[in-house]
């Protein structure tokens, strides 16, 4: 075990934003935290960083995984723990007045590193972020993807064992997102651990060995992406849309699926046997159908509902 959060609870006035949430992170593991806006993801990360003090619960960091003698806890040992963490927050906090290289240098100093030691690391960090050619550019001259990669490189300056990433790819285009994923996978291969929050189910599926689903501050599910899907969902989904799709909600076809949902103009059939549903729909050629395996997005919507959240 590298990191554990035990029964975390955080209240703001009357609202409980994090409610009795526990999780653990093993060395080399990527734990994904998913949940709608306002589910408590960012507050959880802030508590893990000691920036917010939980009303109840314990956060422990194990300097020697597995040995009980080496436990540090937040927030008492915040500085010692943070010396071994790397953080990429939701909003970039890069220094706009510094070049990429200077950003890394100045940040390394906050960890008490010597200038020579940091300067020796800068080329490989820039290389890792694919920013070698931008070493002298300031953040204002970088694209969104480059800025996020610089933030990631900055979080790596102290060679951390655990990375805390709060929505690291929000707002990036597909190319930039894929490059980010590739880099994060590389870090996992190197044995680093990652705690990641995300809104993107493909990101969670691709990177995370284990997922934690939060809603209204509570943990509502936990497991590997495959297990969660198998546990909560039927294997197949048939999406139907087009003229007359909505009317299917009152037709006998509904009996062929174990669960049917209507979202907007599209009907979702969740079923063990997609063939039967597709055959029954064949008589209505004006309908358009999409047959696919159930995925994390289906799971997420099943667990947290389809309605839009206030701040969504």
């Amino acid at each position, binding site marked *: 075990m590298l990191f554990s959060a035990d029964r975390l609870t955080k209240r*703001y006035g009357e609202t409980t934003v994090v409610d009795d949430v526990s999780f653990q992170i093993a060395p080399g593991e990527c734990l994904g935290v998913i949940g709608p806006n306002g589910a408590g993801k960012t*507050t959880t990360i*802030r508590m893990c*960083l000691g*920036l*917010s*003090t939980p009303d109840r619960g314990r956060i422990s960091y194990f300097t020697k995984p597995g040995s009980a003698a080496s436990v540090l806890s937040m*927030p*008492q040992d*915040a*500085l*010692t723990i*943070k*010396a071994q*963490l790397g*953080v990429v*927050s939701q*909003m970039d*906090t*890069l*220094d*706009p*007045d*510094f070049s990429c290289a*200077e950003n890394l240098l*100045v*940040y390394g*100093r*906050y*960890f*008490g590193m010597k200038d020579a030691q940091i300067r020796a690391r800068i080329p490989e960090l820039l290389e890792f972020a694919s920013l070698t050619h931008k070493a002298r550019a300031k953040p204002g001259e970088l694209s969104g993807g480059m800025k996020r990669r610089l933030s990631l490189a900055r*979080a790596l300056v*102290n060679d951390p064992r655990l990375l805390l990433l709060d929505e690291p790819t929000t707002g990036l285009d597909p190319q930039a997102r894929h490059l980010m994923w590739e880099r994060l996978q590389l870090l996992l291969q190197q044995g680093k651990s990652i705690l990641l929050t995300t809104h993107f189910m493909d990101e969670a599926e691709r990177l995370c060995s284990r997922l934690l689903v939060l809603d209204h501050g509570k943990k509502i599910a936990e497991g590997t992406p495959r297990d969660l899907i198998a546990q909560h969902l039927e294997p197949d989904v048939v999406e139907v849309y087009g003229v007359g799709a909505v009317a299917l909600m009152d037709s006998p076809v509904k009996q062929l699926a174990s669960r049917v949902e209507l979202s907007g103009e599209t009907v979702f059939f969740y079923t063990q046997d997609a063939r039967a549903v597709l055959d029954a729909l064949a008589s209505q050629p004006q309908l358009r159908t999409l047959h696919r395996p159930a995925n994390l997005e289906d799971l997420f919507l099943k667990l947290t509902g389809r309605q839009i959240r206030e701040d969504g």
Partner: protein
Amino acid sequence: MTATNLDRAENASAAIRQNVWRPPELSLRFWPVFLRNLLVWRKLAIPSLVGNIAEPLMWLVAFGYGMGALVGQVTVGSAGQSVKVPYILFLASGSICMSAMQAASFEALYSAFSRMHVQKTWDGIMNAPVRLDDIVLAEMLWAAFKSLFTVTAILAVMLVLGISYSPKLLVAWPVLLGVGVTFSCIALIFNALAKGYDFFTYYFTLFLTPMMFLSGIFFPLEQLPAVVRTISSWLPLTNAVELVRPLFMDQWPEHPWRHLGVLAAFAVVSFWVALALTRKRFRG
């Protein structure tokens, strides 16, 4: 200890940790934060220097020589040992305190607020092993340093203009650093409370500007009614002027410990309040 006792002890220490009024926890980790500000400033030092000293010098030259010609000499000091000095010397020794105050206040308000709120630089730093307390300390010392830099440049010009050649200016210099520290600490209280830049206009117009007129910078305090003079004697800027002006005249201040004490008290209390309010702002 039993489990309940352990829990109770833990809850008690958690309560202390969450109390924003707990004593400052300061360490040398403030230094990289100070260095960060220095590195940014180095890139912009020359243009910012021109802006920082041009205005106070224009005031000094226009007022000092213009008004000075009308006013002639000003009497300084109490009945026992009053001295007549040229108005330009009177004004210069007061206005350098004002410059120290303004430079420190400006940096600890507008610039610190940009780093704290707009650029989120502080949030980035707190993800590294640096405490908020050390960041506030770094900002305070940084604003004082910048104020000292402005003061030094103005002192150099005053020497060139031959306003004062008092050897005691060497003592005035560290005293002016102390003035910068005091006003940085006070300004950081308002930084911690600010929702936006507009808030600082109130601080300048309702707090600093009236103080400038009540601290004996432009005219001797003897001109003021007794009640106002009593209030004035407790203002930080008055105490700064009372320390610095005699040094410009190659004399020692009459009550140095009293004035230093007032400035130090303002600095310590303000820093603590500023820190508590900043902790409250960042607590979540």
